[in-house]
């Protein structure tokens, strides 16, 4: 249960950070609070800030929102003692980590700039994966019939 609580908090932070980046990409937020070096802006305005025609930040919003929803659902009485939510969180976080690793590779090897907010989201999804994997090991499974 504590693992799912931790995932929920981490996912909420990731959702807020991704939403911030998405609002910047959509032009609602005028400038990014990012240290003033221009690295975040260069990353966010690069061609790699979109994937299959959709802003990468939108994938972050959707992904973290889904993780938050599953984590909260896993705290409900019906699911709290079952392993399914923890496995689902681990699977989703695994996909997220792979995507984040790809984006981080692009930042380092292609764009040659690191966006702090992107790095923050990458750390969050990695932490979610670790916590959810720990959760799959500690959850009590129902007795077999």
């Amino acid at each position, binding site marked *: 249960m504590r693992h799912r609580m931790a995932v*929920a*908090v981490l996912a909420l932070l990731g959702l*807020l950070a991704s939403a911030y980046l998405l609002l910047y990409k959509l032009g609602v937020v*005028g400038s990014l609070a990012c240290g003033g070096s221009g690295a975040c802006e*260069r990353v966010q305005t690069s061609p790699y800030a979109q994937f299959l025609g959709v802003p990468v930040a939108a994938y972050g919003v959707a992904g973290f929102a889904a993780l938050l929803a599953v984590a909260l659902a896993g*705290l409900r009485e019906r699911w709290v003692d079952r392993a399914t939510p923890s496995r689902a969180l681990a699977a989703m976080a695994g996909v997220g980590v792979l995507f984040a690793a790809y984006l981080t590779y692009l930042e380092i090897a292609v764009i040659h700039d690191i966006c702090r907010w992107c790095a923050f989201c990458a750390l969050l999804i990695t932490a979610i994966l670790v916590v959810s994997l720990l959760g799959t090991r500690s959850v009590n499974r129902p007795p077999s019939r």
Partner: protein
Amino acid sequence: MAARRPMRAFYLTLGIIAVLGALLIVWQTRLLRPARSVTETLASAPVASMSGAAATGHVLGSDSAPVEIVEFADFECPSCARFAILEWPEIQQRLIPTGRLKWRFMNFPLQGHTASPPAHLAAGCAGEQGRFFEMMDAIFNRQNEWATERNPARTIRDYAKQVGLDMSRFDACVETAHAKPGVDAEYAEGERLGVNATPTFFVNGREWPGLLNFDQIQAIVDSLAPAGGAKRAAPPARRR
């Protein structure tokens, strides 16, 4: 009952994080930034007469755009580089394609900046191949690489390769200083207009006091050329 207390505390914590995060994001949005001040600032600025013919600079945007911003800049100027890195990408991607803004870059290499003349020359030569703004991006984004070198021309030449220029044509242009008359003419135009620092911006012929950021430029364009609406009447002008 005992199990409910930790859950309540957890949901309360989650709610506080959500509210604080949302408030921070709202604070960052331009909903809280008034746009009216840019109009007042422009209205109080005198109109300058651009000579036009001899110094055309490098233009990006539609010729019929109702708003023209002229930027006098020096490639060795840190504030100019900061503007190019932080503000220019959004201007180029979000405002210029709307057809409401035309950007005119004018070379203004400051006296005492020994590394900037070859940069302006190289950019001018890139402009002869239709790649001025790509070269401008490369030079400004990597200013800290070349600005302190003894021979910046060599590093800047690498940018020309990366931008995809015809190098034989570029080298010939640089060796003969073919772009220098244009750079000199733009500098002379800046001097005539009283430019003494970079970057200096003129909005539809009126000098903007100080630096500009994307939010202000967006507000200026929205004020002078609202999207989808009729153009607003220009404020009364004072000529010099």
